[in-house]
């Protein structure tokens, strides 16, 4: 039997079964395998060593990353507290005239939904709800910028159109540069009426048996250099005003259906006689039962004119 046959069959050759030539070939094959083994061992040893070094580097990077993450987390916690502190409180004077309930939740530590209460130069209350494009720190920075602008202009004007126009004009280049814009619902509350500007966002007025949703003909802040329009609606004792961003109506359930503006408005209208806090809680319970998860910042502000 030849050497190849023995190798194929796996049989062990007996004494005298192999020729001298077979033995020489076996020897060469053995040396070849030995060399191959040496080379393989050197290759895998270098590879293994490289893996060890890679793991060490990975560990080091993970530690660096954890340190950096901790700094970012701490910074975000501070930023979150600052942003919360920038949100308004209902003053005693305001609480005497308006019943106010608000739900505000940022998707991340800081965010781009923003609401505020002001007084105009004429002493009227002004309410604003804004949704700055994007989320996170950049949106929060724009929020502080807008707040500062509103505080400045409200010392000089009372008209929502003039105020929002002014803000849009002075902010346009800046917002364009930072590639941001913001929806705006800005309302000035007069003794018998409310005047508003609406560029995006949602507004609903429930006045007795009449319900009015806000006109939305204007564009967002920072999107165009175009004059805003001002609208006026009666706002008397017992009337209810709701201002909100798209966080609730555009949230989806497991089936991918939107919660919708219609559903929220109907809920507010059907509960309009209840205290604003109860209306708000009712809306939130319904929303939370519907949505699969929050996917945006949320602001819902409900205000009733007191007697």
């Amino acid at each position, binding site marked *: 039997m030849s050497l190849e046959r023995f190798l194929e069959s796996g049989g062990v050759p007996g004494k005298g079964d192999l020729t001298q030539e077979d033995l020489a070939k076996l020897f*060469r094959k053995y040396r*070849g395998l030995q060399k191959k083994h040496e080379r393989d061992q050197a*290759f895998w040893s*270098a590879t293994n060593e*490289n893996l060890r070094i890679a793991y060490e580097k990975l560990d080091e990077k993970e530690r660096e990353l954890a340190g950096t993450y901790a700094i970012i987390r701490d910074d975000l916690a501070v930023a979150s507290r600052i942003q919360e502190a920038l949100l308004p409180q209902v003053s005693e004077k305001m609480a005497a005239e308006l019943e106010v309930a608000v739900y505000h939740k940022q998707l991340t530590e800081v965010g781009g939904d923003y609401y505020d209460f002001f007084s105009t130069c004429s002493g009227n209350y002004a309410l604003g709800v804004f949704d700055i494009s994007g989320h996170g720190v950049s949106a929060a920075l724009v929020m502080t910028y807008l707040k500062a602008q509103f505080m400045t202009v409200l010392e000089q004007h009372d008209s929502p159109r003039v105020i929002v126009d002014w803000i849009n004009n002075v902010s346009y280049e800046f917002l364009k540069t930072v590639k941001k814009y913001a929806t705006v619902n800005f309302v000035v509350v007069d003794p018998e009426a409310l005047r508003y500007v609406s560029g995006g966002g949602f507004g609903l007025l429930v006045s007795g048996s009449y319900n009015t949703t806000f006109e939305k003909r204007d564009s967002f802040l920072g999107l165009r250099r175009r004059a805003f329009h001002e609208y006026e609606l009666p706002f008397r004792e017992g009337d209810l005003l709701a201002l909100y961003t798209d966080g609730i109506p555009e949230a989806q359930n497991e089936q991918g259906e939107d919660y919708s503006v219609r559903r929220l408005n109907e809920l507010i209208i059907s509960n309009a006689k209840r205290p604003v806090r109860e209306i708000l809680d009712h809306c939130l319970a319904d929303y939370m039962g519907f949505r699969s998860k929050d996917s945006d910042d949320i602001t819902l502000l409900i205000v009733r004119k007191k007697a």
Partner: protein
Amino acid sequence: MARGKKTSDLKVFGATLQGFAQACINLNIVAGAKAENLLGEIEITGWYAFEKLREIEGVVLQAYENSAPILERVGMEMMLGWYNFGPGKEIIKRGVDFLHFQTGSQGYASVVKGPEELVGSFNLEFLDDKGGRARIISTTPFNKDLERGVIIGGMSAPGDLDFVDVKNDEDPQVFQIEFA
């Protein structure tokens, strides 16, 4: 380096460069986007500045503390590709043909061009076919561990040899070859 000659005058054939890059990818030395970048820029029939090859070599040298066995394996892998998917089968039928192919540096000359002083040579200086010994002298700018792998891979690719060993530890430019 020869006076007045720039290393940028030295060019390497695209197929060689691609073979080198592909070998690194096959051995998982580079992966992902880095691998795509390596291959994406190379045209098989083009000629590239030798620095490009140095760049890829740098990937191995940076990644491995002991790069010699890795570059040797890359050289072997390159020649497997050359034999199985390139022109290798047309050029050599037996392991020893690979040595003949290096006579007068002809094999090497087909993949590197430029000023003679920079190109160098990869030349079969001695061959004892029956005794299973040979010697190649290399003055090329290629990494010598890689070249050792190229010789082992080139000679082993046809599969007719039971044993191939290449040593250049005494003088990196002199490859002492044993085969049977």
